[in-house]
């Protein structure tokens, strides 16, 4: 992997893969993804592959035999009614479910061909590669700057120059820079709800992940703020692989390239968003997206 020695990221202990390529873009998934198995339709590279996966919360099973492949640099949406397991699946992709006692996973979840649930996987390292944005915006009660710099600092990035650039780039990436550049050291809790959510996106970007998971990121926002986040999601996919869970079917139709419909812990249908919304194969999917079901 090429590391530009002039890059500020190369100065300190950030690992190679966070170093941007000379073009300024994160390195594309390379050989690893080619080993990941059969490509889905359209010859996209696979970023995440889930095969024969079951998930249990203690005695209750939440997901049944999930099989799907998330393509690189695309937006994949999970839709379905409440309690269908879509958020659970999302939280398996960065192993956030590990925090809950008594959870159990069977089957394979692969990121670039690496099984996430392999005991040798460094979980914190995984979470640096797979960022997450939550349903409720959760900026830390610190300054805007400190919020964005939190992740890099945890990785040992020091030096104001490096951090300043990282914060600026991340805030620009989340199209928040223009609004907050004059008050970077004010408390993040003073931002509006939409701004807070974009700050959380910026915070996730600052770690320079490969995948960004979004768990109903707009459910607490008004339509205008939602619109801005959706635009943002659309632009993010040029650099990142995005997986989004949403209740809002119009949103899924607007922002996603591929879409999976979940019902009672099962993946009912998965395919191109266009196909799912115009010509669903399954009766249940059709019922749900036409609002006959609910």
């Amino acid at each position, binding site marked *: 992997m090429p590391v530009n020695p002039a890059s500020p990221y190369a100065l300190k202990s950030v690992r190679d893969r966070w170093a941007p390529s000379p073009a300024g873009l994160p390195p594309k998934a390379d050989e690893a993804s080619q080993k990941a198995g059969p490509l889905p339709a359209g010859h996209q590279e696979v970023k995440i592959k889930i095969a024969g996966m079951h998930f249990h919360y203690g005695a209750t099973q939440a997901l049944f035999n999930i099989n799907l492949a998330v393509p690189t640099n695309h937006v994949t949406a999970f839709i379905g009614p409440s309690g269908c397991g879509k958020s659970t699946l999302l939280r398996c992709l960065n192993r*956030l479910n590990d*925090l809950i006692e008594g959870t159990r996973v069977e089957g394979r979840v692969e990121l670039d061909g690496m099984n996430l649930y392999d005991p040798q996987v460094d979980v914190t390292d995984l*979470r640096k590669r797979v960022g997450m944005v*939550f349903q409720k915006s959760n*900026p830390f009660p610190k300054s805007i700057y400190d919020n964005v710099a939190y992740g890099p600092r945890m990785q040992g990035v020091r030096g104001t120059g490096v951090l300043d650039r990282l914060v600026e780039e991340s805030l620009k990436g989340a199209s928040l820079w223009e609004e907050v550049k004059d008050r970077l050291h004010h408390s993040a809790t003073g931002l509006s709800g939409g701004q807070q959510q974009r700050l959380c996106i910026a915070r996730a970007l600052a770690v320079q992940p490969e995948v960004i998971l979004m768990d109903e990121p707009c459910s607490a926002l008004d339509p205008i703020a939602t619109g801005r986040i959706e635009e943002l999601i659309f632009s993010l996919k040029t650099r990142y692989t995005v997986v989004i869970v949403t209740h809002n079917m119009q949103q899924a139709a607007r922002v996603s390239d591929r879409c999976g419909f979940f019902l009672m812990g099962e993946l009912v249908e998965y395919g191109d968003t266009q196909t799912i919304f115009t010509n669903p194969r399954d009766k249940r999917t059709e019922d749900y997206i036409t609002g006959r079901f609910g």
Partner: protein
Amino acid sequence: MTRAPLKAFWKSGELFVWLTASGVALSLLMIGALLGLIMVKGLGQFWPADILEIRLADGRTLIGQPINSETIPHSTSQAHPDGKRRTRFRVGNQDAFGYDFKWVDADAVVAQAKPFDLTVFNRREWGPLYGRVRALYREAAPVAEGPAAWPALLPLIEQANRLHERIHRIEHDEIGEINRRLESLRLQRQALRLDNRLTDDETTTDLGLQQTMAGLEEEYQRQAATLDSLRRQAGAYEVAVSLSTGQEVRLPLSKVITALRPNEMDWSLKTLTYLGNLWEFLSGEPREANTEGGIFPTIFGTVMMVLIMTVAVMPFGVMAALYLREYARQGPLVQLVRIAVNNLAGVPSIVFGVFGLGFFVYTVGGTVDALFFPEALPNPTYGTGGILWASLTLALLTVPVVIVATEEGLSSVPRDFREGSIALGATKLETIRHVVLPCALPGILTGLILAMARAAGEVAPLMLTGVVKLAPDLPVDGQFPFLHLDRKFMHLGFHIYDVGFQSPNVEAAKPMVYMTTLTLIAVVVLLNLVAVMIRNHLRKRYAASAV
């Protein structure tokens, strides 16, 4: 028709509002009454009240300050439907009269007046002396007599006080330092002999030590000679005072602290004297079995003990709470531990005192002595009550409060923050360190405030673990190593008990009890205010997310 409005009144909840409000009012009233009583009874004693000269029906004269008056019990008769009155006077001159206070029946008073020349002497021993200045003597030869004696007296008293201060400094600092060095040399020699034989090297060292000791002894003799001459100088002047009985006493000026004529003082002068007395009370050292003088060592001891306790209890309690809340698998066992911790807060404090005595003082202190201070044995160094052991005992007593408050603080940190941090690739430790603890800090400090308030007011465990009636030295001073954790100390709470119940002059001690109580309350409030201010500052910084 009549029932409907009543029903509406019930339903409106008006009554409940009144009920709850009266609960608040009653609490405030009780607190106000408590503070008011203490302040009225305590703060009055520093006021230089006028001195009365009273002629009694039996021909005797009496000089003193009125303290309080009351109706004589069972004194109602036809002539006096409201009963007879009597007044208590402080007549002082305890060494001459044998009593300090005297009740005087109102109908026994023939005449009373406030002559300007009545003087009250505050003495280093035997309390106040009331009378008239007659003459001033130096080495038994009269210097000034009659009205000229008073103006001549005041500068001499000031001079005597300066001399007293110098004598005290020599006794305490210079001779004290010689004594400490002698003691340390003695211990060094003792240490050489611990194995019951001296090698050649050790014999040489021992001889050297012996010579140093001899040098110090000489130094001591010199200081003692200086002291002698100063004492003679201080005792040179005497003032002759005629008492109410007409008897004349000679009072050496070295025994006088102040001489006042309150009857010729105006308000501003009295206020100044009052403030001076108050300052003396707060900054001075106790005299006369703690019934006079100041209480500075007790304030210092109390604050010091609370601070050491805080330093001990904080890391301990926060760590325990962190484990219970963040790491331990929640289940019946943890729940049991939690219940046990909560109940620990309800254990009577004297039980902790007994534990502190048995564990800290005897076991830990005894071991420390055996390991590090064997040359001083059988005199204990740490194997006896001291401020460290008292503070640790109180830390044990208050650790449940800190644990409970910290746990609450930790559980109030939203899960979103933790997940947000974890999802950014932070480890659990990093999350706790950078997100959870800062957010829980106000809650932790609340626990600290509660712990400090409880610790500052505890007396019982301290009596077993290191508080004394009178400590010669503060736990912090200019001698190496500056902080003396093994020293015994004085404490405001114990001081109240001691002054109130153990003093020989109960009447004179009464206002001291109230003043000490007031000071204790003030110290607790002050400590808490500081902690509250820190907490509010942090709360503003870590205000929870708005959305």
